[in-house]
C-alpha cells in the first residue's frame, strides 16, 4: 500500500506503525504521513490476523462454530458466544416447528456472565488506553480485576479466556452452588477497587487534559461512519440495543444508558477521547448493577437440565440437524458495540453462510478520518480510546 507525499516541498515524512507495535493492541498496521508533529494522512492496513473465521463457519456444524466465536473477540468471549447463539436461536424461531425455548435460569446466567465479561473487557480497554498515553500502573490494577472475573469463569467452565460456555439453547454447565455468593462478593470488592482506580487515573488532570478534545467525532459523523457501542454513545447518541431492541431477558431489566456529555469539562467536546473513556467506566457501573439485579431474579436450579425455569440447557439436537431454510440478521450489544450476525441456512446441519459484523471493524474504518490533523503522540491515544481488538477487525 502506498501513500503519495504530495506537498510541493516534499517535506512530509512517512512513518510506519506496526504491524508489531506495542501500542496498537495486536497486529494493526498504520502508515502515518506526518507533517512535522502533525498527522497529515494515515492509512490503516489490516488483515495481519485474518483467520478466515467466516469461511470456517461454512465448514463446521452449527454448535461447533461456538468456539470460533470466542476467537473473534477474545477479550469478551462470552458476549461473542451470546451474539452467535442469539442469532441461531432467532433463526430457529422463524419456523414454529424448530423453535427453541431457552430456560429462564439459562437466560439469567447468560446475562450474568455477559455483564461480568463486559466488566473485564472494559477494564482491559480503559487500562490499556491509560497505558498507551503513558500511565502503566492503572493497567496493572485493571488486570488484577480481570483475574478475579477469570477465576469466576474458570470455576464455571474451566477456561480463562476462550470459554465456549454459552451454547445454542442455553449454557454448557450450570452455575456451581457457591457461584452467586462469589459473584456478589466480587462485585462488592470491585466497586471499592473502582474508587481507587478512578482516583488514580480518571480524575487525573494530566490524563484528562491529554484526552480532552482529541479526535472529536460528532454524533452525525459517528452514525454515518457506522460506529457502534461505546464509541457511538461517546459521541452523544443515546442508543443501546440492550434497552432499545432487547434480547434475552434484558427487557425485564431496566438498563440505564450512559452517553457522552463533555465529561472533560471546559476544554473538552462531546465525542472526544475522554468521553469515550468515561462512557466505558459508566457502563461498568451499570453492569455491576445489572449483575446484582439478575442475581435476585435467578431461579433455583432444577434437577432436570431441560426444565423450563430451573434448567440450563434446552435440547436442540433435533432442531440443529434440520434448521429452517432461510436467513436471519440479528444483533446484540457486545462491549465493543453491536455484534450482528447474518446467518444463512440451507436446511442442513452446516451453516451456509455466517457473517459477523463487529464494532471494531467500523471503528477502524474511521481512523483515517479522525486522525487527520492530530498530533503524532495522540495517535496511540486515539487507537486506545476506540478500543479496537484486532481479530474483530480481521476475523
Amino acid at each position, binding site marked *: 500500500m502506498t501513500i503519495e507525499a504530495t506537498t510541493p516541498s516534499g517535506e512530509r515524512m512517512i512513518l510506519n506503525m506496526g504491524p508489531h507495535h506495542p501500542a496498537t493492541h495486536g497486529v494493526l498496521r498504520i502508515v502515518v504521513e506526518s507533517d512535522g508533529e502533525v498527522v497529515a494522512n494515515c492509512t490503516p492496513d489490516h488483515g*495481519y*490476523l485474518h483467520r478466515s473465521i467466516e469461511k470456517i463457519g461454512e465448514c463446521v456444524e452449527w454448535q461447533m462454530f461456538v468456539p470460533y466465536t470466542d*476467537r473473534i473477540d477474545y477479550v469478551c468471549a462470552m458476549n461473542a458466544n451470546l451474539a452467535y447463539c442469539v442469532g441461531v436461536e432467532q433463526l430457529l424461531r422463524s419456523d414454529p416447528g424448530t423453535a427453541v425455548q431457552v430456560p429462564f435460569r439459562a437466560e439469567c446466567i447468560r446475562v450474568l456472565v455477559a455483564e461480568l465479561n463486559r466488566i473485564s473487557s472494559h477494564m482491559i480497554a480503559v487500562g490499556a488506553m491509560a497505558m498507551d498515553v503513558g500511565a502503566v500502573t492503572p493497567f496493572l490494577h485493571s488486570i488484577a480485576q480481570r483475574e478475579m472475573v477469570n477465576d469466576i469463569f474458570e470455576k464455571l467452565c474451566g477456561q480463562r479466556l476462550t470459554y465456549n460456555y454459552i451454547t445454542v439453547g442455553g449454557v454448557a454447565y450450570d452455575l456451581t452452588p457457591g457461584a452467586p455468593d462469589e459473584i456478589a462478593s466480587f462485585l462488592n470488592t470491585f466497586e471499592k477497587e473502582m474508587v481507587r482506580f478512578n482516583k488514580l487515573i480518571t480524575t487525573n488532570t494530566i490524563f484528562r487534559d491529554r484526552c480532552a478534545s482529541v479526535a472529536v467525532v460528532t454524533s452525525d459523523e459517528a452514525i454515518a461512519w457506522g460506529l457502534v457501542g461505546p464509541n457511538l454513545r461517546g459521541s452523544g447518541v443515546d442508543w443501546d440495543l440492550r434497552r432499545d431492541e432487547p434480547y434475552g431477558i434484558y427487557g425485564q431489566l431496566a438498563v440505564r444508558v450512559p452517553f457522552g456529555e463533555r465529561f472533560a469539562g471546559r476544554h473538552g467536546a462531546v465525542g472526544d477521547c475522554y468521553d469515550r473513556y468515561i462512557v466505558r467506566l459508566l457502563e461498568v457501573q451499570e453492569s455491576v448493577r445489572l449483575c446484582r439485579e439478575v442475581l435476585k431474579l435467578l431461579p433455583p436450579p432444577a434437577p432436570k437440565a431441560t426444565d423450563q425455569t430451573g434448567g440450563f440447557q434446552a435440547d436442540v439436537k433435533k432442531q440443529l440437524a434440520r434448521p429452517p431454510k432461510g436467513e436471519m440478521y440479528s444483533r446484540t450489544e457486545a462491549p465493543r458495540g453491536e455484534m450482528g450476525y447474518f446467518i444463512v441456512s440451507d436446511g442442513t446441519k452446516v451453516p451456509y453462510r455466517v457473517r459477523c459484523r463487529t464494532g471494531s471493524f467500523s471503528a477502524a474504518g474511521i481512523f483515517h478520518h479522525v486522525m487527520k490533523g492530530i498530533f503524532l503522540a495522540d495517535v496511540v491515544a486515539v487507537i486506545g480510546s476506540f478500543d479496537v481488538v484486532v481479530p474483530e477487525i480481521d476475523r
Partner: protein
Amino acid sequence: MTDDPMMNALPGSTKQKAGNQLDEQIHLTAVDEFLAWGKENSLFYLLFATACCGIELMQAGGPRYDLDRLGMIPRATPRQSDLMIIAGTITHKMAERVRLIYQQMTEPRWVVSMGSCANSGGPFSKWSYSVLNGIDKYIPVDIYIPGCPPRPEALIDGVYALRERVRRYRTLGVRETVPHIVASADAAFGCHFGKGGSKQPEEPKA
C-alpha cells in the same frame, strides 16, 4: 553482598558464604558459565502478541503471575530482547514480518511458541486458508507450549525449560536444535507440532 543468594548460586562457587578476605570474594568460573548465569536471569522478552494468547501473555506479566520475578521484562523493540514469545496466530501475511523481527534480534536469541496456533495452526489448521500452520516453517523454535490458550502456569513452565537451555548455551558451541515440548494436560485440538513443518530451517543471516 555476602548474603546475596544470587552470588552464592554462581556456577563454580564452592563457598556458601563469601567472607571479607580478598581471596574469598574471587570466584573462578568459565566465561560462558558466567554469561549464561546472567542471561538466564534476565531474559528480556519481546512484547509480541498477535492474538488471544497475547492476552494470556499480558496476564502472565500482570500482578498475579508476575513474570518480572524471573527477571523477565517486556521490551518494545526486538533489538533489546533475548526472547521472542510468539503468542497467537500467525497468518501468511504476518509470517514474513515475524521473520523480519526475528532477524532484528541480537544473538543469542530464543523463540518460544505459545499456543496451538503458533505451534501448528491449532483450531485453524484444517479449514483456514490464510493461517500459517506453525511458525516453525519460518523461524527455529526452542520451546513449544501447547494449549488454546496455554495457562500462564504453562508459560512459566516453558520459561523454566528455556532457562535450562540458556544455561547450556555455549558461545562457540553447537546450537541445540531439538525443540522442547512442554507437557500440558489441556493440549486442545490435535497438534502436529514439534515435528517441524519443514524440519528446523537454518538460521537466516541477520
